[in-house]
C-alpha cells in the first residue's frame, strides 16, 4: 500500500535539498575554488534520490492489484476524510512526475553551466528545486486547495528565477508576471469558494460526484468561469497570454528553458486535470466547444505573432503560446486518444521548447539576439545550429522527429471528437509555423555572417542540449517507449467517464 510519505517523498527531498543547497554551494565556492564538477555532483545527488523514490512509487503503483486505479491517500482516514487534505496517485500523475523529473534534470544541468557561480547562484538552484518540488506535489495533490497552494509555490518561485539577473526588462517582466499570477490566483480562489459553497468540500472526488448530481447549474457556470480563467492565465491561453512572451524573453535562458519545460507543462497538466478529471464531464457543462474556440485562437495568435517577431527568443516564446493551443485541442476532445496526445505532447513540447531556449541561451551568450544577428550562425557553430534546426523541425512537425507524432495524435484526437474544423485550423497553423521556422533556418544557413564572432561553442552547455536532441530523435522514430507508459493512463479516462 502506498502511504502518504512515499507520495510526498520527491517533494520533501527536493525541498530539503533546496535548503541544504544554500550552505553547500557557498562551501563549493569558497573551499573548492568554484569547481563545476562538484557543483554538478551536488545538483545531481537530490535528483538521484528523487529518481529512486519516483521509480519505487511507480513500481509500487503499477505492481498493486487494487480495485481502483485512482489511489486516494487521505491525511485523516475517518468519516471526515473527504474534507481533509489528500493526495491522488494515478497513472497520469506518475507519468507527469517522471516527465518533470527527466526534463527538469536536463534543464538543471544546463542551468549549472549557464548560471555558474554567480553571487546569488545558490539561491537560484535552491529555487529551482523548490519549484520542481512544488510542481511535483501539485501533481499528486487530490484536493483543489492543496493543488492551488502547491501550484502557487512554483508560480512564486518562478518569478524569482525570471528576475534573477535583474536587468531592467526582467524586473518589468517579473512584475507583470506576478500581478497576472495574483489575479489568476484570485480568480481561482473565487471559483473554489463557490465550489465550496456548492459542495462543502474541495476534494476531487467529492466535488466530482456532487457536481454530477447538481440540478441548478448557474452557480457552477460562474465557478467554472473563474477557475478556468485563472488557470488560463497561468497557462497563457490567448488572450490571457500576454505575460508569457515578456517573461520568457526577459528571463535568463536557463530559466526560460526550465519554465517552459516544467512549469508550463505542469500548468497544462493542471488545466487538463481540473477540467477533464474534476470539474464536470462535458455532459454536465458543455465546455469543449468553448475551449476549442480558445484553442484555435491561441494557435493562430501565437503563430501569427511568432511570424512577426525579430527577436528569436521572443519568437520561441510565442511558439510556447502556440503549443498551449495544440494542447488545448487534445484537452477539449475528452477522449482517451486526446489524453494520450496530451501526455505525449507535454513531454515532447517541453523537451523541444527547452531545447530551443537552451540553444538560444548559447547564442545569446555570444551577444546575438535578433534574427539578423543569427545570420550565418549555422556555419560558424555547426553543433549549436544543428540543435536549433532539430528543434524547429520538431516544432513544425516533420516526421521522424517527436513533434510529428505529438501533433498527429492531437489532430486525430480532434477528429475523434468530431471537431474536424479544429484539426484543420491546427494543420493550417502548422503550415504557418513551418514558414517562420524555415525562415529561421534560412537565416542561420543562407545569410552572410554579419559581425565577426569571437568565441567558441561552449562544450559543456552542449551536453544537455544534445541529450534533448537525442531523445527527440529517438522518440520520433520509436514513440512506443513513452506511449507504453501513457496508455494505461489514458485508459483510466474511460473508467472515469463511465462511472
Amino acid at each position: 500500500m502506498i502511504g502518504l510519505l512515499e507520495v510526498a517523498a520527491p517533494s520533501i527531498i527536493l525541498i530539503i535539498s533546496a535548503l541544504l543547497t544554500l550552505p553547500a554551494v557557498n562551501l563549493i565556492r569558497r573551499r573548492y575554488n568554484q569547481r563545476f564538477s562538484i557543483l554538478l555532483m551536488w545538483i545531481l545527488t537530490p535528483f538521484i534520490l528523487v529518481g529512486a523514490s519516483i521509480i519505487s512509487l511507480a513500481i509500487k503503483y503499477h505492481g498493486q492489484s487494487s480495485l481502483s486505479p485512482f489511489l486516494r491517500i487521505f491525511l485523516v482516514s475517518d468519516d471526515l476524510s473527504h474534507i481533509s487534505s489528500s493526495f491522488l496517485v494515478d497513472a497520469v500523475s506518475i507519468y507527469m512526475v517522471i516527465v518533470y523529473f527527466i526534463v527538469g534534470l536536463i534543464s538543471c544541468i544546463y542551468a549549472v553551466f549557464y548560471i555558474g557561480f554567480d553571487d546569488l547562484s545558490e539561491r537560484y538552484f535552491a529555487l529551482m528545486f523548490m519549484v520542481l518540488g512544488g510542481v511535483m506535489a501539485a501533481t499528486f495533490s487530490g484536493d483543489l486547495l492543496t493543488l492551488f497552494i502547491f501550484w502557487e509555490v512554483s508560480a512564486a518561485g518562478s518569478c524569482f528565477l525570471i528576475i534573477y539577473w535583474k536587468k531592467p526588462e526582467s524586473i518589468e517582466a517579473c512584475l507583470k508576471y506576478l500581478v497576472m499570477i495574483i489575479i489568476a490566483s484570485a480568480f481561482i480562489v473565487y471559483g473554489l469558494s463557490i465550489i465550496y459553497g456548492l459542495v462543502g468540500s474541495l476534494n476531487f472526488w467529492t466535488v466530482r460526484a456532487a457536481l454530477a448530481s447538481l440540478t441548478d447549474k448557474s452557480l457552477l457556470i460562474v465557478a467554472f468561469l473563474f477557475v478556468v480563467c485563472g488557470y488560463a492565465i497561468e497557462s497563457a491561453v490567448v488572450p490571457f497570454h500576454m505575460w508569457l512572451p515578456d517573461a520568457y524573453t526577459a528571463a535568463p535562458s536557463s530559466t526560460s528553458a526550465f519554465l517552459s519545460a516544467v512549469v508550463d507543462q505542469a500548468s497544462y497538466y493542471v488545466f487538463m486535470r481540473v477540467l477533464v478529471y474534476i470539474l464536470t464531464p462535458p455532459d454536465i457543462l458543455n465546455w469543449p466547444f468553448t475551449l476549442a474556440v480558445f484553442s484555435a485562437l491561441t494557435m493562430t495568435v501565437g503563430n501569427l505573432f511568432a511570424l512577426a517577431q525579430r527577436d528569436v527568443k521572443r519568437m520561441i516564446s510565442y511558439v510556447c503560446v502556440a503549443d498551449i493551443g495544440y494542447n488545448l485541442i487534445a484537452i477539449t476532445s475528452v477522449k482517451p486518444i486526446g489524453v494520450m496526445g496530451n501526455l505525449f505532447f507535454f513531454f515532447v513540447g517541453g523537451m523541444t521548447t527547452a531545447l530551443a531556449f537552451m540553444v538560444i541561451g548559447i547564442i545569446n551568450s555570444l551577444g546575438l539576439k535578433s534574427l539578423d544577428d543569427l545570420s550565418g550562425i549555422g556555419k560558424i557553430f555547426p553543433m549549436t545550429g544543428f540543435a536549433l534546426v532539430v528543434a524547429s523541425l520538431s516544432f513544425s512537425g516533420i516526421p521522424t522527429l517527436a513533434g510529428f507524432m505529438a501533433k498527429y495524435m492531437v489532430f486525430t484526437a480532434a477528429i475523434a471528437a468530431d471537431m474536424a474544423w479544429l484539426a484543420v485550423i491546427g494543420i493550417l497553423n502548422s503550415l504557418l509555423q513551418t514558414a517562420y521556422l524555415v525562415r529561421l533556418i534560412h537565416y542561420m544557413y543562407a545569410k552572410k555572417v554579419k559581425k565577426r564572432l569571437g568565441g567558441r561553442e561552449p562544450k559543456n552547455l552542449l551536453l544537455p542540449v544534445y541529450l534533448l536532441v537525442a531523445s527527440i530523435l529517438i522518440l520520433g522514430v520509436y514513440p512506443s517507449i513513452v506511449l507504453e507508459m501513457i496508455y494505461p493512463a489514458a485508459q483510466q479516462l474511460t473508467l472515469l467517464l463511465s462511472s
Partner: protein
Amino acid sequence: MILEPYSPWLVWLLPLFSSIFVPLASKVGSKFRDIYVVGVGMFTLIFSASLISMVYSGRSVSLKVIWVPRLNIELGVLLDPLSVLFANIVSFIGLVVLVYSLSYMAHEEGLTRYYFFMLLFIGSMIGLVIANNLLQLFIFWELVGLCSYGLVSFWHKRPEAVKAGIKVFLMTKIGDVALLMGILLLYANLYSFSYEQLFNRYGEIAVPTLTVISLLMLFGSIVKSAQLPLHTWLYSAMEAPTSVSCLLHGATMVKGGVYLIARTHMVFSSIPLWLDLTAWIGAVTAFVGATLALQTSDIKGVPAYSTISQIGFMIAAFGAASSPKALGWFAGLFHMVSHAFFQGLGFLAIGSIIHQLGTRDMKRMGGLRSNMPITFILSIIVILSRSGIPPFSSFFSKGLIASSLVSTGNLSLILLIYSAAAITFAYSYRFLVLTFLGEKSSYLRRFKVHEAPLLMCISAGVLAAGCIIFGFFSVPFMRFLGVEFKFDPSLFFGFESLGFVGSLIVGGIPIYLTYQRRSIRIEELKSKYLLFMNDMLRNGYYFDWIYGRVANGFFNLSSLLRSSIEIKVLERLPYVVADNAMRLARFTLLNFDVTLTRLTHLIAEATAYHGLKIRRIHSGALPHFVLAAALGFLLLFILLILTT
C-alpha cells in the same frame, strides 16, 4: 528466391539506414564512401528487382508489422505491380544517378551531406511508394520534401540556392497540408489509414465528403508533381546540382503525385468532378509547361518545364480513364516510365554540358556538336524520345494517351494535348539548335570544350538504351500491371498516334525557320506580333509574381495584425477609435488608388503620426494585460452561456 522474405523490407530500410552511416564511411576515405554508396544503390536495385517476380500479373501482397501498438499505427508494405514498378524506377534511376554523381560531383565540398540526402531520398521515396497505408505515405512524403530542401540548397553558400530551397520546401508544404487534411478526413470516416480498408470501404463515405477528400488529395498530388497552379517551385528547384534535378525533379520525386493519383484512382474515379479536374489540370499544365519551356534561355529550364508539361500528359491520361485500370490509367503509367528514362537522360546530358561549360545560359552556347559528340547523340535521343517519334518509347505512351483522350470526346482537351505535343517538339528542337548546332559563341571560343567523362557518359547511356527499347515492351508491361483490356497493336498506329507525329511538323517548322535558318527574326517576332505572349512567358504567366504578392500580403497582414492588435486594437481603438477612423478614411479618400502595399505604408504613417500619444499608452503595459484578460473572460462567459 532466397531474398523473398526480406526484400520487401530491406528495399527501403537499407538505403534509409545506410544514409546514417555515410558520415562514417566518409571518415574512412572518399574512395570507400563512393564504393559504399554505389554498393547500397546496387543492393537496393537487386532487392527491388527481386520483388518483380512476386507481383507478376497483378498479384498483390501485403505485409505489416505494428509500429506504435497503442495508436494502431502499422508499418507495412503493399506489394502490387504499381508499387513495385515505382520502386524499381526509383532504385534504377537512383543507382544511375549515384554512379553519375561519382564523376559529376567529384570536386565538390560537402559530399557527405550530398550522399546522405541522396540515400535518404532513395529510401524514403521507395518507402513512399511501397507503404501500405496513407499515414506512412505521408511520413515519407514529408521526408522526400525535406530531402528535396536539403539537396536544392546543397550549395548553401549560394544565396539563390538557399532561397530556392526554402521556396521549394514551403510551396510543397502547402500541398502536404492539403494532403494531410485529406488523409485525416478519410481517417475520420473510416478510422483506418490502410489502402485495403480504403479500397474495400470507400462506399461507406458520403459522396460530398469523399469529393472533398478527393480534391484535397488531388491538390496534394498536383503540388508535389508541380502542376498548375503551383508549378513554379520546380523551376526554382533547378538551383540544385543537376544530378539531384535528374533524380528528384525529373525522374522520381515529382512522380509522387502521379503515384498517389494512380493509387487512389480506383477510389476517386467514381467522382466525375475529380476526373474532370484531373484531366483539365493535366492538359492545361501540359500546354502551359510546354510554352514555358519554349521561352526559357536557361538550359536547365528546358527539362524542368518539360517535366511539368510531361507530367501534365500523364495526369491528363489519368483523368481520361473513367474506370479503374482503364486505358488511360495504363497510358499514364507507361508514359511515366518512358518519361523517367528520357527526362533522366535529358538531365544527365545537360549535366554533362554544364559540367563542361560552367554556365546555364543557352544564349552563350552553340556548336557543341563537334566537341561533345556523345552528348550530342544522347541529346538527339532525348529529343526524339520526348517528342514521341517512333520507335522511341514515348511514341507508344503518348499514342496511348492520345487515344484515351480521344475516347473521352472532349474536343478542347484533345486540342490542348495536341498543341502541347507540337510545342514539345518545338522547344526540344530549339534547345538542340541553340546548344549543339550553329556557330560557336564567343563565350565558347575562349576555352576548349571536352567530352564529358566516361563514367557520366556510361550512366547516361544506360538511360538512353532504356529510351530506345522500352517502347517495345508494352505488352509484357501491360501484363505485368494486370490491366485487363483487349490489346490491339493497331492502337499504336491508329489515327491518334499518327496525329501526334503529324503535329510535330507543325511545331517543328517555325523553330526551324526562326532558329536554324534564321529567316524569321526572333526579336521582331517577339516585339511585334507576340508581344503579349512574350511578356506572359517571360514572367512565367505571372504565377510567381502572384504568389509573391500573396506571401507579401500575408506577411504584411501579420505585421499589420501585430501592430493593430498590440498597438491599435488593444490600446488605441477603445480610446481613439473615432479619431483614427476619420484619419484613415481621409487618407483612403485622398489616395483612392492605393494598392495593398500602399495601405500598409499608410497605416505605418498613421502609427508614426500618433507615436507621441502611443508612447504614453504603450502596448506591453500591465493594464492592457488585464484588459485582454477581462475580454477573454467575457468571451469565455458568452461562449459558455451560448453552448450550455
